[in-house]
């Protein structure tokens, strides 16, 4: 006789697993989870985020445009949430958002035309770059261990000023140098910056009164580093030989 089938649990996708952990950390810090659409207008994806029309900054993000729907795109970042939220709820704001974004890029082991981003936004009267550093280091220490260190470097995104690149000590080798961090001891984790006054203004918030910061990271890369996944395409393969390892 066949043996009695024991009940087997299924498996969550690794992006779900890691995003749950990270979003939970933000919720515990008093952030509210919000969402915005994947099919988005240029207004929220570019215009209100201080991307001038016809500007090469828009080339940094290879955009999919929607046919016969002028002014519509697949969002190139979850930052489309920023002005949508500010318009609706105003300041102060402390929100975290996570979702699928799209770039018109040729696919290979490290690039996909779709991937996930997680972003947070803090708008109030007091936050500074020092608070941004403090909060982000706390978030990553909770996620990857209390020895994790964070540093910021100058960078540029049209919707922040000043803009930063966020580096973490490599959590594979604890900063001693390995192949994951290309022997530098640091991993580029994402972009951040003080919210540009033009973005606050576009969201109906007075930049003379309010300020804040935003931080965003490419989630697939983070999942790949954490689990040592060699090819981003596994994430969208629907292959349980992959998913059931998690």
């Amino acid at each position, binding site marked *: 006789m066949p043996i009695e089938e024991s009940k087997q649990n*299924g498996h969550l996708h690794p992006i779900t697993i*890691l995003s749950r952990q990270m979003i939970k950390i933000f919720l515990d810090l008093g952030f509210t989870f919000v969402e915005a659409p994947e*099919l988005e207008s240029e207004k929220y994806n570019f215009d209100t985020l201080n991307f001038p029309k*016809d500007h090469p900054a828009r080339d940094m993000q290879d955009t*999919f*445009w*929607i046919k016969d729907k002028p002014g519509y795109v697949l969002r190139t970042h979850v930052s489309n949430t920023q002005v949508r939220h500010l318009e609706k709820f105003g300041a102060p704001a402390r929100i975290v958002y996570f979702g699928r974004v799209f770039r018109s890029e040729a696919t290979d082991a490290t690039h996909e035309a779709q991937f996930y981003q997680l972003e947070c936004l803090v708008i109030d009267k007091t936050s500074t770059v020092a608070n941004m550093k403090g909060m982000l280091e706390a978030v990553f220490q909770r996620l990857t261990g209390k020895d994790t260190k964070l540093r*910021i470097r100058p960078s*540029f995104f049209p919707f922040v000023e*000043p803009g930063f690149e966020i580096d973490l000590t490599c959590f594979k080798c604890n900063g001693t140098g390995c192949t994951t961090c290309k022997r530098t001891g640091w991993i580029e984790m994402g972009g951040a910056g003080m919210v540009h006054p033009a973005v606050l203004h576009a969201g109906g918030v007075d930049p003379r009164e309010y300020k804040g910061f935003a931080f965003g990271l490419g989630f697939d890369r983070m999942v790949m580093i954490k689990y040592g996944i060699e090819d981003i395409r596994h994430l969208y393969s629907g292959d349980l030989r992959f998913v059931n390892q998690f």
Partner: protein
Amino acid sequence: MKISYNWLQDNFGKKLPSPEEIKEKVIMHAFEVESLDEVDALGEKDYLFDIKILPNRAHDCNGHLGIAKEIAVLFDLPIKHHGPADFPISSNVPAVKVVVEDSELCPRYMGRIIKNIKVGESPAWLKSRLSAIGQRSINNIVDIANYVMFQTSQPLHIFDADKISGNTINIRPAKDGEKMTTLDGKLVNLDPLILIISDDVDALAIAGIKGGMKAATTAETKNIILESANFTAAPIRRTSQKIGIRTDASFRFEHELAPELAEAGMAELTRLVMELAGTDDIEVGAIVDIFPSPRGIQQISFDKIDIPNILGISMDEQTIESLLARFKAHANFDWEKDGDKYTVMVPNERLDLINLHGQYSGGVKEDIIEELGRVNGYENIPFVPLSVVSQGPVNKLRYYTELIRDVLVAEGFSEVYNYSIVGPGIAGQTIELRNPLADDKKYLRTNLHEELGKKLLFNIHNKDLLGVDQVRIFEVGRVFPSYDVDGERVHCAIAIESLKKQDVIAELERIVSILKEKTEIADIKIIENKATKDSGVIEFDLEVSIDKLPTPEKYQDNSYVSVDTFYQSISLFPFVARDIAVFVPVEISADDVFAIIAQGSLVQLPNLLINHKLFDVFTKTFPDGSKKTSYAFRLVFQAKNRTLTGEEVGVIMDKITALLNSTEGFQVR
């Protein structure tokens, strides 16, 4: 941007710090340095930096001088400036006649005639500098124009003055039907949206993009016209995309350059032509400068208190002023002070600090505070915790999405993420991409179940490898069921494999009822419910299903978060499944039996037995009265690096069989 260390050094009187020191400083205070390599620049040792210039600094840092100014500010090292070249303007040389039709498209045009030059080989230092950044030397005239662009960021052009019909340089839209052959021999059809440089008859160049054959300089060229002009970014970008020609010049113009940069370009170009292509009879004409609308100087004011308000670190007056002094000394800034208020005068080429695109878009105090903050060092900014606030409201959609995930995983479902951009769709009814990556992937998915059904069949093929009783998968995701841009919805779909012993429709119904019970979503809005001989699928609209439900007060504690997983790459080679059944004494457990099987599999290393499943157990009384238990296992073999042969697996199975049979009371059936 490729930057040569020796070239940078040419811009300084004092010895620069080492390439490694420069790299570290630039990374932490200015730009990402993607690589630094020692290179052989035609026999001269050099170092090449690859510096990532983002759009905000593409106005001034796509040239060595821009980077040199950054280094000057960061290390407080003075730039060595060439004084204005000392030469008389020859009255024998006529001023070139320039007509700019539309200064919106060409905000500035500078031209100058130089007579009696000599085209020849470039000097070794010039060839070496160009070689370091990957540019080939052509002749002194071409090399000079190239060099000045890679020095100042200002693109330049040199025409052979004797090849021009008439005596006017026109900057005008091309006419329909006009054509031009580029310097590299490509015939371009022009149209009125393309701005060209022409003489009285023909197109001489596509403005800001590429020179033409007609007035090209050659080894015989004696008299030249120098062009240092400014063209508006967006039209250059559109033309370059349309005609499919991208050059170092068009790249710079499409990132927007300050018209004032043209002056620096013309001065440096003239100086080098005189120095490197001069003859005893050289005659330099006056500059013609068409620049109808010069801009004023951008001023940005900030208060001392703005620094801690933005950066979270205070700077005393001495620090602020020593930083401002560096910008003034090395990078053409100026500043003044009135009490605690500072006003900074921004150099023209720093378009990132100038208000060009509407209120708050640029030229704001944050721009200057960034400059002070990064030069002072972001590492000096402390880590200060964020103020604590109480938890915000629950997001209803997220609450239910995560709950559904947990319920489904507990019911044996694994989660997949499929693509949003898919093949199937109907033109005019399905949202379609204007610029798809491939013709067979141009629609947005209207549902989840179609792709999920395909993935189910795929996984059923690997069922033995997965070791599951039934393949069950689900997806939660955004779909685009209507042709309306506001029609995006969140759906959930589940798919299960059909099993002989199970009514698939009844099983789907059972799962839906479990979902209803555990999530308390009473009214699950099913939009697809389908069973075939292979599978069953159900899809529902999550947003509609929860629409009437109240927002929960707090999130559930989602239980299925990670235990630390060690991921192993998937073998792309086929697996082989073999069954083995063995009679053993009744007191022997399945685990005991498998331990022996596992030991037997070690005959081949690395171990190829990657999965096993106990699928049948029964106990039989033999005629002699003895009782034995039969355990049947399915064994799955697979290699990481090759397709296993039947013989190879046979050897392992033989060893396992022999080992089982040699155990007291065991008999392989």
